[in-house]
C-alpha cells in the first residue's frame, strides 16, 4: 500500500477504535449513574430495585413528619394518592419542604421498602410542582376515577 494511504488507514482505524471505546464508556457510565424515578405505588409494589440509588417522591403526608429529639434524623411519608412511602433522612430539609407539598428524595431502598435518602429536594418556588410528582398524582387520580367508575358500574 502507498505509505500515505497506509498512514491514513491507520488514523481512521485509530479514530474508530477511540470513538467506540468512548461510546462504550459513556453508555456504561450513563447506565451506572442514571437515577430512575419511582412513585410510592411502584415502590410498594416492588417495582423499584433495592440498594440502588433511585429517586422517589410525592406529596408529603400531613402530620407525618417526625423529628428525632436529639439529632437531625427525620422521617416522613410521601404519597401519590395510591400508596404511602416512608422516607428516612438525616440533615437539614430544604426551605420549601412542607406538609402537603411535593418533595423528591434521592436514596436507596432498604429491605422494608423504606427509602434511606441522601438528598431531599422540595419545589423551588411557590407555583412549581416537580413534573414527576405531578405525573404520578395525575396517574393515580385517573386510576381512582376508573376504579370508582367500575365500582359504580358493578353496583348497577
Amino acid at each position, binding site marked *: 500500500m502507498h505509505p500515505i494511504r497506509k498512514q491514513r488507514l491507520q488514523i481512521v482505524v485509530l479514530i474508530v477504535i477511540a470513538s467506540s471505546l*468512548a461510546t462504550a*464508556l*459513556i453508555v456504561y*457510565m*450513563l447506565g*451506572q*449513574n*442514571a*437515577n*430512575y*424515578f419511582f412513585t410510592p405505588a411502584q415502590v410498594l409494589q416492588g417495582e423499584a430495585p433495592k440498594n440502588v*440509588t433511585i*429517586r422517589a417522591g410525592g406529596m408529603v403526608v400531613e402530620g407525618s413528619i417526625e*423529628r428525632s*429529639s*436529639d*439529632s*437531625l434524623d427525620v422521617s416522613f411519608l410521601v404519597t401519590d394518592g395510591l400508596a404511602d412511602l416512608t422516607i428516612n433522612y*438525616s*440533615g*437539614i*430539609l430544604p*426551605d*420549601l419542604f412542607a406538609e402537603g407539598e411535593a418533595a423528591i428524595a434521592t436514596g436507596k431502598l432498604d429491605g422494608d421498602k423504606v427509602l434511606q435518602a441522601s438528598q431531599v429536594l422540595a419545589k*423551588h*418556588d*411557590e407555583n*412549581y410542582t416537580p*413534573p*414527576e410528582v405531578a*405525573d404520578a398524582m395525575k396517574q393515580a387520580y385517573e386510576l381512582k376515577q376508573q376504579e370508582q367508575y367500575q365500582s359504580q358500574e358493578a353496583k348497577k
Partner: protein
Amino acid sequence: MIAELGHFALIIALAMALLLSLVPMVGSFKGYSSWMRLANSLSLGQLLFVAISFVCLAIAFLMDDFSLKYVSQNSNTALPDHYKISAVWAAHEGSLLLWALILAGWTAAVALFSRSLPLVLSARILSILGAISVGFALFLILTSNPFERLLPMVPIEGADLNPLLQDIGLIIHPPMLYMGYVGFAVPFAFAIAALIGGQFDSAWARWSGPWINLAWVFLTIGITLGSWWAYYELGWGGWWFWDPVENASLMPWLVGTALMHSVSATEKRGVFRSWTLLLAIFAFSLSLLGTFLVRSGILTSVHAFASDPERGVFMLMFLAIVTGGSLIIFALRGPAMQKVSAYSGWSREVMLLINNLILVSAMTMILIGTLYPLVADVLDLGKISVGPPYFNFFFVPLTVGLVIAMGIAVFTRWKSTEVNLILGKIPVPFLVAIISAGILPFYLSVDYSYSITGGLTIFMSVWLVATIAKDLIEKLGINLKRIAKLSHSYLGMQLAHTGLAICILGVGLSSTYDQTRELRMAPGDKALIAGYEFTFSGVNPIAGPNFSAFQAQIKVTKNNQLVANLFPEKRHYNAGGQVMTEADIDPSITRDIYVSLGEPLADGAWALSLQVKPFVRCIWLGALMVGIGGLLAATDRRYRRRRQSASNNEVAL
C-alpha cells in the same frame, strides 16, 4: 402608554432587523454598494429601537405598572429600585428582551468597528446578525411579549420578585452570560459570511480574534458569577451541581475556548481553517441550545414543553434553521477552505489540536449527559436524572490531560520543535510538581493523612504554574522590565493559564478537604470543626425592607482567639410568603467559614449547617484571572495595528 411605546419600538426594531437581513445581503450579491452601505445605519437604528423598548419596560417596573402581566408577576411596590430594574431580566420575557438588546449592541459594535473590512464582507456579517435578530424579535413579539396587558382586571399589588433573585449577583450574572452567549453570534456571522464568500485567510482570523476573545471573557465572567451566586445565595455552600442549566452555559464555553485556540493557529499558520469555522458555528449553536434548554421549559419536563409548545417549538425550529442551515453551507463550502500545511509531531499546532480534542470531548460528554434524560423521557424509557458522578468521571481525567498538555505546550514552537529541547525543559517543573504533590497534602489535612485527590490537585496546579514560570524566566531573564516587551496575547495567555491553575487548586482542595456538619444545636451548644469552635448563642427576630427574619448568632473561635461572629438568617418574604436561607460567610483566601440556618426544632434548638471550606475562594479568583487574561489578549497590538494599516490602505485607494 409607556408599554405601548415599548411594544411599538420592538416592532420597528423587528422591521429594521428584517431590512438588515435582506438588503445588504442582496446588495452584496448584486454588487449594489449603496444597498450594502445601509447595513451600518440599520444596525445602529435597530439598537436604538430595541434600547427604547428595553427602557420602556424598565420604566414600567419603576412605576409599578401592574397592568403589565410581566411586571405584576415579577415585581412589588416594596421592592427596592435597583431590584426593580434587575427584575426586568428576572424571567422569560424580559430575559429575551435583554438577549435582543445585547444582540443589537454587538451588531452595532461590529458596524462601528468593521470599517476596515471589505464592504461585501461587513455587509454580509451584519446581514447575518440581522437575520438572527429577526428570529429573536419574532420570538419575543409572537410568543413572549413582555408588554402584554392584564386588562381590565389590574392587580393592586405585584407578586414580587423571587427572593433568590433579589441579589447583586443576579443583577449582573445574566447580562454577563448573555453578552457571552450572544457575543458568539459575531464569529458565527463572520464564519458564515466567509463561507458564503468562499474566502477565509489569516486576515479573517485576525479580525475575528478579538471578538471571540471578548465574547469568551464575558461568558467566563458570567459563569463565574453564577457559580459564586449559587455558593452564597442558595444557602448550602455548593458551587457547581452539573445541573442542566449550568451545563448549558459550560458547553459553549468549552467550544469557545477551543475556538479561541484554534483561531490563533489559523491566524499564525493558516492551519485548521475549516475546523475553526466549524467551531465558530458550534459555539453559537450551543449558545442557542442553552437558551432553548433554559427558556423552553423542556428542562422541568418534556411534558411541560408539550403542554405549552408554542415557545419550545419556535425555539427548536430556530435552532434547527440556524444550526442546520449553517452546517449545510459548511458542508458545501468548508472543504474548499482547507489548505495543506506541514507541521510535525512536536509542534504548537499539534498541542493546540490536543487542546481542541480534549475540550470538544468534554463538551460532547456533557451534551450527552444533559440530553439523555430528555431523550429517555420522550422515548418513554423512564424518568431519569444523570448524577454528578457521570460528569466527574469524564471531566476530571480530561482536565488532567488538558493541564499536562498545557504545561508542555508553552515550550513548543510553530511548525516543529526539537524533541530534546522540550525534554530538556520539562524535568524541573515536573520534579517541583511531584515533590509538592508528595508533601503538601499532609499539611492540608487535619490529621496529617495523605489524600490522592489532594495530591493530584496540587500536582496539576504546581505543574502548570512551574511551566509558566520557567517560560517567563527564560523570556525575561533577570530583567523584569522586559515584561513590557512581551505581547499582550502572550501575557494574557500566561495570566489565564495561571488563573486556571488557581481555579483547579480551589476546586480540588475545597472538594477534598471540605468539612461540613449538619447539627442540632440549642443556645449555648458548641461544635468543633477543623480546629474551629462554633458557639451558637441563639436566634433573634429581625425585620428587613420586604421580609422578616430569624437571625442566629454564632461565634467562631480558634485556639480561644475570636475568628468571627456570624449572623445567618432564615428569611420570610412578606409578599409571596417565601422562606429563604441567607448564609453568613467569614471569607479568606485559604478557607471560608460558612454557616447557614436550617429549621427550628423543639425546645429553642435549631438545625444548623456549619462548614469549613479550604481554598474555595480560589475557584472564583482563578476564574476571574482567566477572564482578565482573555481581556488582555484581546487588546494585543497586532489587532490594532491591522486596523490602522487597513484604514490607511483605504485612504490610499
